[in-house]
């Protein structure tokens, strides 16, 4: 890829995370490669079940049985996280890589005050007194714009609104000055005016703390407003990666094109006409025993027989704009698995 390697904070190479279920092997993440530069935000978009959350949990190595990371590398600042022992990994989690989730209520402990929980997170990685940790917790709450933080720190999670709880989660996430923040649908459960506040806060933190961010979302509006690059995922595979501007103005993969077309767009100048929305026919495939080739082929208006004959390689349609589509000139590799351009193949022998 064309970017300077040293600027990469995170480089995921050919990641494979499979779930070994009674029904068969679910290839939730199947050969995913991308990079995130320092201080930049990558959006990972796709519909439910496409593997975007499993990708983020894999980066933190939080996959539990029947799931397993069966192949690939996750290079964080040059170190492959998949080779670390559990103790070294724990030092990365929270301290260097932090994560926030869609529903803060499930991640907060209902029986402790929010101040206590932030202080705990600080104490886990710093050798300071409890009093100091509490002071820092209050400061962090101020940093995430919680009004009256001294009082609020003594509240329990249920006493706070959804937006405030998400701010608490963010305060906890930034408590150890992480370099990478993974945000998995951070505003999906929030009302739109509160969402605007939280997105603004994340952008402010990204700038002031020089954070890199992996933002996982299904909301294309949120992606357009907050990311520098976008990776589009479908059925466990990336189908397109490009700058945010290219994704929205010149999408290449038929799935990306379809996704952008079927979203109702709000305008300030609606006419009197009602139009039909464009749709993508059919629904997302079952990930068990997925046939070879492009997973989108059964729904794709541009599909032909070559799409089903083997793995589709990425092709670079312009510098930094990668797409995986036969109709855009991608090669079909009948003998897998060299999936990512310019990368050595990493075979995980899985089952």
């Amino acid at each position: 890829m064309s970017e300077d390697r040293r600027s990469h904070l995170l480089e995921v190479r050919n990641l494979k995370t499979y779930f070994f279920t009674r029904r068969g092997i679910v290839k939730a993440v199947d050969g995913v490669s991308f990079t995130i530069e320092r201080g930049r935000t990558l959006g990972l978009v796709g519909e439910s079940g496409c593997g975007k959350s499993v990708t983020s949990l894999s980066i933190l190595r939080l996959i539990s049985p029947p799931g397993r990371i069966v192949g690939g590398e996750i290079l964080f600042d040059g170190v492959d996280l998949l080779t670390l022992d559990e103790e070294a990994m724990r030092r990365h989690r929270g301290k260097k890589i932090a994560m926030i989730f869609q529903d803060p209520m499930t991640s907060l402990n209902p029986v402790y005050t929010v101040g206590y929980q932030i202080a705990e997170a600080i104490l886990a990685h710093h050798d300071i007194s409890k009093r100091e940790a509490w002071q820092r917790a209050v400061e962090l709450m101020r940093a995430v714009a919680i009004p009256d933080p001294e009082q609020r720190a003594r509240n329990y999670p249920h006493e706070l609104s959804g937006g405030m709880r998400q701010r608490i989660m963010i305060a906890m996430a930034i408590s150890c000055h992480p370099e990478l923040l993974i945000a998995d649908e951070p505003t999906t459960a929030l009302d739109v005016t509160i969402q605007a506040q939280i997105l603004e806060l994340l952008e402010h933190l990204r700038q002031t703390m020089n954070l890199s961010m992996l933002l996982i979302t299904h909301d294309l509006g949120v992606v357009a407003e907050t990311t520098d690059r976008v990776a589009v995922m479908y059925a466990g595979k990336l189908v397109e990666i490009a700058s945010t501007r290219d994704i929205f103005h010149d999408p290449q993969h038929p799935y990306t094109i379809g996704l952008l077309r079927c979203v109702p767009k709000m305008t300030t100048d609606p006419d009197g006409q009602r139009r039909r929305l464009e749709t993508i026919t059919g629904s997302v495939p079952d990930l068990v025993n997925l046939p070879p080739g492009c997973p989108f082929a059964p729904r794709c208006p541009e599909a032909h027989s070559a799409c089903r004959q083997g793995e589709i390689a990425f092709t670079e349609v312009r510098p930094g704009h990668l797409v995986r589509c036969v109709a855009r000139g991608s090669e079909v590799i009948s003998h897998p698995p060299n999936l990512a351009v310019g990368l050595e193949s990493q075979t995980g022998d899985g089952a």
Partner: protein
Amino acid sequence: MRNDEKLVEVIELKKYFAVRRGLFGTRRQPVRAVDGISFTIRRGETFALVGESGCGKTTTGRCLLRLIEPTSGSIRFEGKDLLSLDRSEMRAMRRHMQIIFQDPYAALDPRMTIGQIIEEPLQIHRWGTKAERRERVRELLAEVGLDAEAIHRYPHEFSGGQRQRIGIARALALNPTFIVADEPVSALDVSVQAQIINLLQDLQDQHGLTYLFISHDLAVVQHLATRVGVMYLGKFVEIAPRSEIYRHPQHPYTQLLLSSVPVPDPDARRERELPRGEIPTALDPPPGCRFHTRCPYALPECREQEPPLIEIEKHHWVACHLVGHNQH
């Protein structure tokens, strides 16, 4: 072109829920979920209720079908006062008024086949013979775009979008005139959401349906609605035809809501007035204009006097002390 006949007329509708507070639940305090709203829905239109969580839009929808009993007010459907009907009269009335829910899975009995689920309302209303009902179920499945073989299958075998189609088929079974659609596409992926939105439009065109469309998604509402009512803490702040709401929003809350929606265009100009503060609770709504605590233009009178909903232009109603005073 459109018939201006009133199908539903709501006058001063209120719904208070009693909430027990205090250590032993001894203090009772009402939540004023819907606090005196009036509006009409015309035959054949899609009236959209929008607002954030807790604004009372879902409660309003349920009150209209008397799925929950209003505290006071009146609801007229085709001229009949629904609140004066007894239980069996109301049940008969529900042939004409149906509801589609957000989560189609929770709304479908997992132990019943799709055929039984769709047939159930027909049985309750003693519609036709068994053979006729089976035929009607097949007809409905085709209408919502499902295969006839779905009849013998169970809800868990279907995807979210297909389940919503099943919910729609059941709602249509008795040929209703009015459907309350409560966030019907909010739980669906965007590619499937578009399919369901198109289906709802097609069904409206074919059957002349009238919709009360409840949603927090302003882009979806712009796509579907004829008129839009914006609610905040149990009250309307603005009601207007769709193009008016999106082109000339008058109430500061409507403006805030519209400017908060992220636009799927990286080059879009963002001149966002960042909303202040949090949404207050309906347990203890602010006095005067309920929005004054977050309003960038609030005047002293906004803290004391509740602004009435007034018609500032034909069909465009706004409840704001500043509107009409040319102050913004």
